[in-house]
């Protein structure tokens, strides 16, 4: 499979200049494959955001190398090529819009890249449609719900035509409904061919992942499919992650000897299973 992002044994220290030394990444290697839905999970301070910021060259590794589409992120001349290929959405829905009106905000990225005017107008419409917000072109994000604001932020990134969408805890400040909106949007975009890297400490959002990467203390401590990760309670425990209730029930059922086999990831499947047990 094609690799969109190659991370080779990178380390990163914050505050090296001031001599304080916070080692946020210690020898991380990871490939992001084209078209996959990758979830990076880990508790607070495990280094997820630091890793994310290496994916579009916002941070450059202290040692090791990151390549996007084969271009090293240290290549200054092509850094904007990298940034438009790897779009990034952050945590706080209020801090990512630069303009009062939706259309002006979405235009920001393509304007910066010097995309022709008619093309920008087209991209605004396409991006809004892709996040299910057509018709909000002339509105202002100020009055929207958190979930809608984050979708506008995603649209702003999509207008740069990225190959990868990185969501750094973009759901953590939202209510359950907003969270669902954003995750659904990410899944839809992934089905349409965009590679998604979703960073979260809410493990429920990892159900749909092709792969889950678990981070702890600046290391990658586990990589696997949701099935592998969520049946390995010990690993989750060691990395201070909690099993979502849906899977905790199944784990207890297995321990008690009521069922065996593969875990299921939807409430409907679980209730079906429980009914069969009765």
């Amino acid at each position: 499979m094609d690799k969109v992002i190659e991370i080779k044994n990178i380390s990163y220290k914050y505050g090296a200049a001031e001599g304080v030394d916070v080692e946020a990444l210690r020898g991380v290697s990871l490939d992001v494959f084209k078209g996959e839905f990758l979830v990076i999970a880990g508790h607070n301070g495990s280094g997820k955001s630091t890793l994310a910021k290496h994916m579009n060259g916002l941070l450059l590794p202290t040692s090791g190398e990151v390549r996007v589409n084969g271009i090293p992120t240290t290549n200054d001349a092509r850094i904007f090529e990298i940034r438009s290929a790897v779009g990034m959405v952050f945590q706080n829905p209020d801090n990512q819009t630069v303009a009062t009106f939706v259309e002006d905000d979405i235009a920001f990225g393509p304007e910066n890249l010097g995309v022709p005017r008619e093309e920008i107008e087209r991209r605004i419409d396409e991006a809004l449609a892709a996040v299910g917000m057509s018709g909000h072109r002339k509105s202002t994000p100020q009055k929207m719900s958190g979930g809608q604001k984050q979708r506008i932020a995603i649209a702003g990134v999509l207008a740069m035509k990225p190959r990868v969408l990185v969501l750094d805890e973009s759901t953590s400040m939202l209510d359950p409904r907003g969270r669902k909106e954003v995750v659904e949007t990410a899944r839809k975009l992934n089905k349409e061919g965009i590679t998604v890297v979703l960073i979260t400490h809410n493990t429920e959002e990892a159900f749909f992942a092709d792969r889950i990467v678990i981070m702890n203390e600046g290391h990658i401590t586990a990589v696997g499919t949701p099935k592998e990760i969520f049946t390995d309670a010990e690993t989750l425990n060691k990395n201070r992650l909690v099993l979502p209730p849906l899977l905790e029930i199944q784990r207890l059922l297995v321990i008690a000897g009521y069922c065996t086999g593969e875990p299921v990831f939807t409430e409907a499947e679980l209730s079906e299973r429980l009914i069969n047990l009765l």
Partner: protein
Amino acid sequence: MNNISFGQYYPSNSFIHRLDPRVKLICAVIYVAAIFFVDSYFVYAAVLLFGITVIALSRVPIGTVLKTVKSVLFLILLTFALNLFLVSGDKVLWSWKFIKITATGLDYAVRMAFRLFLLITGTSLLTLTTTPMELTDGLESLMTPLKAVRFPVRDIALIMSIALRFIPTLMEETTKIMNAQKARGASFDTGNLLKRVKALLPVLIPLFVSAFRRAEELALAMDSRCYDATPNRTRRRQFKINMVDIAVLLIFAAFITLIILDKYLWGGAMDGIIYGLIFKK
């Protein structure tokens, strides 16, 4: 509060609203400068008439325009009083102990107060008929020649638009913090001035901390969206001057010519002519 991002803007589709914001900006700047050259009462009346015509054309209710004067009413009255009592002259109209009102004083006071009034109403007409976004875009376009001397026109325009964008967010946040402090027993509207200022500190500090955190995340988001990627950035909105804009500029130019002529050529003689016409014996 909910409309704060639009400033004073009074939405309408009048032809004044639809004018090129650059034309309106230029007119406003010239207007402000010209007001200081207005000399005779005749021209004051002409400016007032002109203003009323523009307001009528803009379809902004007179009351809305006058409301903008309310916030500076004190300043106008103060100017009036200072001129009235402090300007000395020969012809004393009224006196009481050491207070004297002279004809010259009255004349000055009326002129100055009226000048301020015209200044405020005239400029607020600009913000009433133009959205802040149009103003920012217009300013950016007008400042374009400054790029030649490496003046960061684009950055300045972006700073203005981001400031506009964050005003409501920060207002909301201030209300939230104030409510949180109130819930803990803080009081913002009792006590003397010093006490009130002190009560504001626990609001301002968290507000600043949060503003800096926001700025940091915004900067990351802007970098991620390729800010400063190329000097050949696309300008999405392009202004086109049309015939109406040109006509407005011409009318405005004629108007300014009248003011200048009155001051330097006729020496306020218009007043004399009018007095003559009215009080003809």
